[in-house]
C-alpha cells in the first residue's frame, strides 16, 4: 500500500479553509444514526467526544480510569501555546508553525503543523468561553509566559496546573453531552481490540474492569485518543496507567505505526532515588524561564550548592547557547545535562543530577517589588522575602511538590534535576484527515505521530490534543461518515466480533495460566532498563542490535514465567498491567528497529555516530527526510513504508540555538 497523506492542494495558508469549504457534510438527521467510538478522554478524546456529541453523532467514550476527568492530560503543568500575539512580540501563525517545524528538527508534515498553528488561537477562545480560569494580568487580560525553543511569549497557563484546567473544561463539555444523552460514557473500561469488517474499523472489544466481562461495541468509526507510550521505559513522567495497548491493537489490525523511535526526554525531572521508584516527577519547563541551570566547575565537588561561589559554577546552557540560554529546546537541554554528568560534574548522592537555581530570580524579582513599592534601601532579607513571594505566585505548587518528594526546600537550596522520559512524538501514522491506514480508524492527540516531528516544543501538545479534538476531527470525520449514511449498525454477533472476542479472551487466559514466578513489574522494570540504556538519550548501532536480542529473550521469558494472580472475572489490576506490558515488549522491539534504521540524528533521536563537532544532532536530509511508517506483518515482523517530507514554506537548516 502506498501512503497517501491527502494533503489538500493550494497555498499553505489556504489549505485548511479550502478543505473545510469543500469537505462533504453529514446532515443532522443522519448524524443521529451514525455511531462513533472514542477511546480515551484526555484532552484529545474529551474534546472530540464532546464536540461530536454536540454535532449530534451517537458517541460512546471509553477510559480505563474511574472517571474521564482523570486522564493523564490532567497532569500537564506548564501551559498551552497559541499564536494570539497578545504580547505584541511579533507572533503569528507562520511563526508558531516555523518554531514547531524547527523545534521538531524538520521531521514533521508541513501542512499538519501549519493547520495546528492556524487553529491554535481559537482554542484559547473556546476554553475561556467554557470557564477555564487562565492566569490574568491586573488589567484583566490573559497572561503569557515563554517556553523553550521560542523567542516570543505565547504560552497561556493556569499556575502549574494548565492541563488540569483545560481537561476539566473539556470534561465538563463531555459531561454536559452525557447529560443530554448524545454521549454514553464507559469508565473503568479498557479497549482490548479493534473489530475490522470488510477492511473497515467497525467496533471494539472492551473489558469492563470492575466485573471483568468482555463487551462488544459497534461503531461506524473508531477514534483513538489513547495517549503516548513513554511507559515502555517503565520510569517516565507519565501516569502509571498510560500505555500503548489501544494503539498497539490498532496497529496489529492494520494501522501503520509512525516514527516509533522519537521519544522526548525532558530535561527537568526529579532524579531517581532508589530501585523502588515507580515514576518520575516532572518539574515544569516553565521553571527554566527563571531558574538557572548549573553544575560545579570542579569535578566531584562535594560542597553544598550554596557554598559554591558564582565564579566556580558552570552555567553550561548559558555558556553553550548564549541566544537561548536556559530556554533551549528539551532535547538539547537533556543531552547537555547528560554530557556534564557523564563527564563527572554531576551533583547529589547519585551524581546523576544538575542544579536548577532560583537564587538570582528571587533577588531580581525582590528588587523589582521593592522598586514598585518605592522602598529606597531595602535590606537583603526584605528583597529575598518579596522575591520569594513573586516566585511562589508563579511556581508555588511546583516548589511544594518538590519539597514533598525530596524533603528539600527549593526556595533555599537549588532543585536537583535530571532528564526523564516524558513524551512520545511517534504514534499511529495518520493522514491530513487524522485517519490511520485502517479505514474508519482515526488517531488524535499524543497517540498519533503527527505535528511534532522528532522533538515536541513545550506547551504544544495540549494545543495539538485540543486542536485535533475540537477543531479538526469534527470536519474530517464527515468526509468518511458521509459515505456511511447507508450503513446500518452491524449487530455485534457478527463473526468478526466473535473472533476478536475469542482472541482477547484467549490472551487474558494465557496470561493468567502461566502461573510463573516473577511479577509483571519485575519484567516491566527489566524492559525499562534495556530501553533507557540502549534506546534512550543517546543511541548507537551496536547497543540497538543488542537491545533487540535482549528484548526478544526477555519477552520469551515473560511469556513463560510471569505470575499474574487473581482471576479474569473481577477487578484485577495485575492482569491489566500484564496485558499492557506484553504489548510494550512488542513495541519496544519496533522502537529499536526504527532507531537502528534511522541512521542519522534528528531532534530527540540522537545517534552517537552522527553528531556535529560540538555534539549537536546531525541530520541527513538526503537519505532520511521521511516519516517511517511501519506495517505489522506478523509476530516480530514489520515492513517499512516511507512518507517523503518536502518543504515548501520553510528553508530547512541545521538547527541552531546559539
Amino acid at each position, binding site marked *: 500500500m502506498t501512503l497517501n497523506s491527502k494533503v489538500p492542494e493550494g497555498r499553505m495558508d489556504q489549505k485548511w479553509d479550502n478543505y473545510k469549504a469543500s469537505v462533504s457534510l453529514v446532515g443532522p438527521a443522519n448524524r443521529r444514526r451514525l455511531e462513533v467510538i472514542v477511546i480515551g478522554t484526555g484532552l484529545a478524546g474529551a474534546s472530540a467526544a464532546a464536540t461530536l456529541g454536540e454535532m449530534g453523532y451517537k458517541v460512546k467514550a471509553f477510559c480505563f480510569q474511574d*472517571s474521564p476527568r482523570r486522564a493523564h492530560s490532567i497532569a500537564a503543568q506548564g501551559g498551552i501555546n497559541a499564536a494570539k500575539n497578545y504580547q505584541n512580540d511579533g507572533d503569528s501563525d507562520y511563526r508558531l508553525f516555523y518554531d514547531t517545524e524547527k523545534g521538531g528538527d524538520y521531521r514533521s508534515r508541513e501542512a499538519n503543523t501549519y493547520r495546528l498553528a492556524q487553529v491554535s488561537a481559537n482554542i484559547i477562545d473556546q476554553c475561556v468561553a467554557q470557564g477555564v480560569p487562565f492566569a490574568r494580568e491586573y488589567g484583566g487580560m490573559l497572561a503569557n509566559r515563554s517556553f523553550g525553543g521560542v523567542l516570543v511569549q505565547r504560552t497561556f497557563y493556569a499556575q502549574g496546573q494548565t492541563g488540569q484546567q483545560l481537561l476539566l473544561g473539556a470534561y465538563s463539555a463531555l459531561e454536559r453531552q*452525557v447529560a443530554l444523552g448524545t454521549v454514553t460514557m464507559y469508565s473503568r473500561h479498557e479497549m482490548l481490540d479493534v473489530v475490522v469488517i470488510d477492511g473497515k474499523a467497525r467496533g471494539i472489544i472492551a473489558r469492563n474492569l470492575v466485573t471483568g466481562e468482555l463487551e462488544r461495541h459497534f461503531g461506524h468509526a473508531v477514534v483513538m485518543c489513547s495517549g503516548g507510550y513513554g511507559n515502555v521505559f517503565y520510569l517516565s513522567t507519565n501516569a502509571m496507567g498510560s500505555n500503548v495497548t489501544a494503539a498497539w491493537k490498532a496497529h496489529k489490525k492494520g494501522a501503520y505505526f509512525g516514527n516509533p523511535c522519537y521519544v522526548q526526554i525532558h530535561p527537568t525531572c526529579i532524579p531517581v532515588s532508589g530501585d523502588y521508584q515507580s515514576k518520575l516527577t516532572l518539574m515544569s519547563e516553565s521553571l527554566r524561564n527563571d531558574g538557572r541551570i548549573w553544575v560545579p566547575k570542579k569535578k566531584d565537588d562535594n560542597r553544598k550548592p550554596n557554598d559554591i561561589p558564582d565564579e566556580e559554577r558552570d552555567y553550561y546552557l548559558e555558556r553553550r547557547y548564549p541566544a537561548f540560554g536556559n530556554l533551549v529546546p528539551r532535547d538539547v537541554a537533556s543531552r547537555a545535562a547528560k554530557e556534564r554528568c557523564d563527564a563527572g560534574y554531576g551533583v547529589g548522592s547519585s551524581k546523576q543530577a544538575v542544579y536548577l537555581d532560583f537564587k538570582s530570580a528571587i533577588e531580581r524579582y525582590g528588587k523589582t517589588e521593592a522598586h514598585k513599592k518605592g522602598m529606597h534601601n531595602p535590606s537583603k532579607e526584605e528583597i529575598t522575602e518579596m522575591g520569594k513571594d513573586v516566585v511562589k505566585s508563579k511556581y508555588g505548587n511546583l516548589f511544594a511538590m518538590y519539597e514533598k518528594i525530596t524533603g528539600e526546600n527549593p526556595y533555599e537550596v537549588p532543585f536537583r534535576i535530571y532528564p526523564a522520559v516524558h513524551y512520545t512524538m511517534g504514534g499511529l501514522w495518520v493522514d491530513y484527515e487524522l485517519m490511520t491506514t485502517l479505514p474508519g480508524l482515526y488517531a488524535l492527540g499524543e497517540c498519533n505521530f503527527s505535528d511534532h516531528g522528532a522533538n515536541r516544543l513545550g506547551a504544544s501538545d495540549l494545543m495539538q490534543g485540543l486542536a485535533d479534538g475540537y477543531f479538526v476531527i469534527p470536519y474530517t470525520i464527515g468526509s468518511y461518515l458521509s459515505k456511511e449514511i447507508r450503513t446500518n449498525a452491524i449487530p455485534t454477533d457478527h463473526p468478526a466480533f466473535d473472533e476478536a472476542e475469542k482472541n482477547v479472551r484467549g490472551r487474558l487466559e494465557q496470561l493468567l495460566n502461566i502461573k510463573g514466578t516473577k511479577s509483571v513489574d519485575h519484567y516491566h522494570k527489566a524492559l525499562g532498563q534495556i530501553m533507557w540504556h540502549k534506546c534512550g538519550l543517546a543511541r548507537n548501532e551496536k547497543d540497538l542490535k543488542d537491545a533487540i536480542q535482549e528484548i526478544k529473550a526477555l519477552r520469551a521469558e515473560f511469556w513463560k514465567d510471569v505470575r499474574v494472580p487473581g482471576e479474569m472475572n473481577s477487578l484485577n489490576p495485575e492482569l491489566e498491567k500484564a496485558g499492557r506490558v506484553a504489548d510494550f515488549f512488542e513495541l519496544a522491539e519496533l522502537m529499536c528497529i526504527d532507531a537502528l534504521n534511522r541512521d542519522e540524528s534528528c531532534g530527540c533521536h540522537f545517534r552517537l555516530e552522527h553528531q556535529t563537532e560540538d555534539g549537536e544532532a546531525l541530520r541527513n536530509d538526503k537519505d532520511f527526510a521521511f516519516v517511517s511508517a511501519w506495517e505489522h506483518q506478523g509476530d516480530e515482523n514489520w515492513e517499512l513504508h516511507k512518507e517523503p517530507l518536502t518543504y515548501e514554506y520553510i528553508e530547512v537548516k541545521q538547527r541552531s540555538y546559539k
Partner: protein
Amino acid sequence: MEHKNLSLTLKVWRQKNSKAQGGFETYKIDGISTEMSFLEMFDVLNEKLINEGKEPVAFDHDCREGICGMCSMYINGRPHGPWHGTTTCQLHMRAFNNGDTIVVEPWRAKAFPVIRDLVVDRSAFDRIIEAGGYVSVNTGTPQDANAIPIPKQKADAAFDSAACIGCGACVAACKNSSAMLFVSAKVAQLANLPQGQPERATRALNMLDQMDKEGFGSCTHTGACEAVCPKEISVLNIAKLNNEYLGASLTVARD
C-alpha cells in the same frame, strides 16, 4: 536527604467485591526507605504478596503527582494520611517512624460503595457535574478570549476553587458524608467568572439536588472537609454555595 529504613505493621482493609464482607488483614513489612512514597510502600507490599502466592491489595492511583484525584486511602483515621494539603500518592514515608502500625481503609460513604479492597466507586461525582457543572457552550467560534477582561482577583479566586481534584476526601472525612465542599468548589468557580453567570442560579440548585439523590448527607459545618482537602479548598466556597442557593431558590421557578 538522608534516609532511614523502617519496619512497619500494616492493617489493611481487604474486601473481595462490593457484596463480600470485608475485614482487616495484618502485614509486617521491612526495609521501607523513608524516601519512598506511600504508594511505593504499597508496591513493595504487593510485590511481596505476589511472591508469596497471595493476592495483592487493589488500590486506585494513576498520576502519582497529586493531580488526577484517583488515589484514595484512609490512613490512620484520616483521608490521605497525616500530611496537610497532600494526596495519598504525595505522602512520603518520612511521615512515619520505625515500628509504627498503620491502618489503611477505603473511603467510607454510602454514595461511594467499595468495589474491592481500597477501591471505591466515585461515579456519583461525575453525575453531579452532569447536573450542571459546566457552561453550556458548544465548540465553535466564540468571541476573542480577551473580549471580556476578568479582574485578576476574580480569575485567581475562580482558579483556587477550580483546583479541586475530585478525590472525595472531603466526603470521607465528613461525619455526614456530605459532598458540599466538592459541589461548592465547582459552583464558586463558575460564579466568579462572567461566563458562568447565565446559568448561575440553576446550576447551584441542580447540582445540590443531584448530590441529595446520590445519597450524600447534608452539611453541618464541622469543617472536617477543609482540614483534609489535599488542594486546600476553603469552606468559604460552601458559604458561597449557600448564598447562591438562597438567591436561586428565590428567583428560579421550579417544576
